């Protein structure tokens, strides 16, 4: 099968890879670039474990072809923490509020939540639940995930107000 060269920016780094035209973005990330934060859960665009940010939108990377990300900007959970190693407020809030148990859905939850909070910095509980409705968690019952996102939103708004 013909190979295609894909160039894109992942977590701020410019990367290139030679992929089959049928290669999915999730496989480009996990297998070619060794970025294994995004998980493969259902592989049918239901569960959201593979969610990454592509050009400012949350997408399920199991249902995007790698070639569709040509020249794109990708953010995964690996790119969320600050350069000095301190956690993103969402990551900290998930820790503080026990927003995870097994952790399988967490990278997708976090990357989806950061896009949600960019679009809606002050979401209600209902808006959070609707915003993460494409991410399934089989452990927590969502209660603490919603709490964590809400806490992170408050934290980020306070920080912004102080600056």
């Amino acid at each position: 099968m013909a190979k295609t060269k894909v160039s894109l920016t992942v977590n701020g780094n410019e990367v290139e890879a030679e992929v089959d035209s049928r290669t999915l973005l999730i496989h480009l990330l996990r297998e070619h670039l060794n970025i294994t934060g995004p998980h493969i859960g259902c592989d049918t665009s239901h569960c959201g474990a593979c969610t990454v940010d592509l050009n400012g939108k949350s997408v399920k990377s199991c249902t995007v072809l790698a070639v569709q990300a040509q020249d794109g900007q990708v953010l995964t959970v690996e790119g969320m923490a600050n350069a000095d190693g301190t956690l993103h407020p969402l990551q900290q809030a998930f820790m503080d509020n026990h927003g995870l148990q097994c952790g399988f859905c967490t990278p997708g939850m976090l990357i989806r939540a950061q896009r949600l909070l960019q679009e809606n910095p002050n979401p209600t509980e209902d808006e959070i639940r609707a915003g993460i409705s494409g991410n399934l968690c089989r452990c927590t019952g969502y209660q603490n995930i919603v709490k964590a996102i809400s806490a992170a939103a408050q934290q980020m708004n306070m920080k912004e107000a102080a600056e």
Partner: protein
Amino acid sequence: MLSELGSDCRPLAGGHSIIPMMKLRLAAPEHLVDLGGIDELRDISVGGGSIEIGAMVTQHELLTSAELGKACPIIAETSALIADPQVRYCGTLGGNVANGDPGNDMPGLMQCLNATYVLESSGGAREVSAREFYHGVYDTALSDGEMLTLVRIPTPPAGHGYAYSKLKRKVGDYATAAAGVIVSMSGSTCQSASIALTNVGDTALYAADASESLAGAELNDETIGRAASLAEGITSPVTDMRGSEEYRKKMAGVMVTRAIRLAAERAS
């Protein structure tokens, strides 16, 4: 490219139907033509009595367009019931209506709104009514080498009432049954109505008799009930994990009833 490569080739819009179908080996096109770079397919324009929406406009854009929300709010109401946020960032109006999947919500809505589809090929363009576009499951008026590029909707009159009612088991599910309704009211009398149904037959269904039965009628339990049973009468759902044939038929009527009541309430 589409006309050169013929039936071995499919256009790739948001990819959230064709890629899952390829994974399931239900589709095996040799070539995909990515439409992502064609900006002309991403326009929304409202004016001159009609609304034009390019095929590559995403569900997310339909949900967040202020001018669409003002001129035709039933579109956003429907988009919000499709899949989930991630899928709505990718999924397009063109893909949703052109694929011919009876589970999709936009074909029924477009029949309710009496939309026209513009189909283009290297040989030129033609227009087909949404009410005539669907022949069967994944079977549409599209020919090989032809692509749906634009959806044109006559702007519903100011003060119209609208509702899209969808029964589903969970977020992201296709409808057990769904109905789209547009009405124009004068007091409690219905001037005109348009009713269409989703996922209760091989295609979306425009409920012509049910729609006509409401024109000039006082809206009450009897007239709404009559419209609902006329609509039920044209359905032919299959028994599946969403319910038995009988249940889904009944639910089609219930969705029609709910949508008419809500649309009438919203009309001014």
